[in-house]
């Protein structure tokens, strides 16, 4: 019984990890751009305030 459980857990982990990794990497590109743009705007704003 335990071997069957561990086999399912391991298979689920391989499939799940692959799927999640591809998803976060793909969507992370847009977030990186947004983060850098926001930081740039903040600094430009603080420079103009000074």
């Amino acid at each position: 019984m335990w071997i069957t459980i561990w086999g399912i857990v391991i298979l689920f982990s391989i499939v799940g990890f692959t799927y999640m990794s591809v998803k976060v990497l793909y969507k992370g590109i847009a977030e990186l751009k947004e983060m850098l743009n926001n930081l740039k705007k903040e600094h430009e704003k603080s420079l103009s305030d000074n």
Partner: protein
Amino acid sequence: MNFTLFDIGIVAIYIGLVFLSGVLMKKYVAGIGDYLVANRTMGFNLGIISMMCTEIGMITYVYYAELGYKAGFASLIIAVPPMIVYYFLGKTGFIVKPLLEMKIMTIPEFFSRRFSKGVRLYVGILMAVGGILNFGVFPGVEAKFINTISGIPEEYVLVTMVVLLTLVLIYTLLGGMVSIILTNYIQYALLSFGMVFITIYGVYIIGWDNIVNSVTIKLGEKGINPFFPTLFKGEFGIGFIVWQILEWTAILVAWQAISLRLFSSKDSKTGMKIYRWSGLMFLFRGILPIFWGIMAFAYFTEPVDGLDALPLLLKAIIPTGIIGLIFAGLLAASMSTYASYLLSWSSVVSQDIIGVTIKYFTKKEMSSKRQLMVSRITVTAVMIFIIWWSLFHKLEGYLYFYLQMTGMLFLPGALVSMAFGVYWKKARTAGAYLAFTFGAIPPLLYLVLSEEVKNKWASEIGWGGFLFALIGMLVGSLIQNQFKNSKNRIEQTV
């Protein structure tokens, strides 16, 4: 399989790319907010990537694989508690939501606001000691890993580690959290490929039936059933599960490297979503390397040292070219962990020890620019210490347990003080002091006792730390409340 020039080339290009990205981020760092928490702009997907990269290093794979190698399939249960705790915290917001709403940058800052500056300083010291002792074994373990896979002679491994840490130091010093988030992205791309490849290729080469039969024949029921012989007596039985759930709850609310990611989130909704999904990723993070250790157990006919099982397996089965990519991924994993941990522990030292002390004597806060300078100096000092500690400290027992126990020098006190600080109005400063002090006693005992005692009583020492911390909080708070009530009564009489 040999580590060839082609593999070295792949590694060199990859490290160069990561380093360059980090250096280019310097222009985005103006003040301490940008440096420590990227001015709170990190989104969900970057949060997941960053969380995984921080908490995966070569050492992660080594200690999980050691467990798999020594305890077989039964040790896979270890990957389950973090998943449960992450989901619970992300769903309920227990402690994490109030922390996010407070907009703090470090954990000790919470203690300053809720209890007193004295508690913040005390916590800062305990966290720095525990965290840096924990971090201190990383270079030694990983140097051995690099040596085994790459074939670099042992006398050059120290040089290799110093070069790598220096590269990490440069891009951490310059860009802080912003560098880390970008380089994490690049590193995760290679890391995730490596993890999937090792697992699938390993099963293809060794064979699932062969793996199962090896464990069943050599380890018996103990290697398959985590609760063997009974739920209460098993090495990974109920005592162990309780310890792990308490420990992971403490880690996820009070471990500086993880909480820095929480505090870097755009808002509390994003932070909690990151936690819910990180649970699943942390399950995978444990299951896959533990399984590699089990594969190593099946593959090697002669016994090997538990900590060498994984690098020897990778060296034996992964083809040339691919081993370069995998090695670059593993190296990247370590570099991102070093960057994050250097930043985390140095921020505790600079903000919560040095910053608090300077404010006490000068009666004013350091400027953001000065805080930045102090942070960078402490990062360098921590780096020097961990190289020294790695050279002189000798490991005993499971590496995983050493890492958990060093963390436990402050984690039981932190969890209890934070939980009661947030949810119990009568929690007092004296309670916090005693929670931290009592909670540190069991793990201190673990670190000094013999290997035999360590292995036999690890779970009891584990959950015992949390019980002691709870007693300290209740006793300290009740005494202080009693004292306060008596004082009020006397004043009223007068």
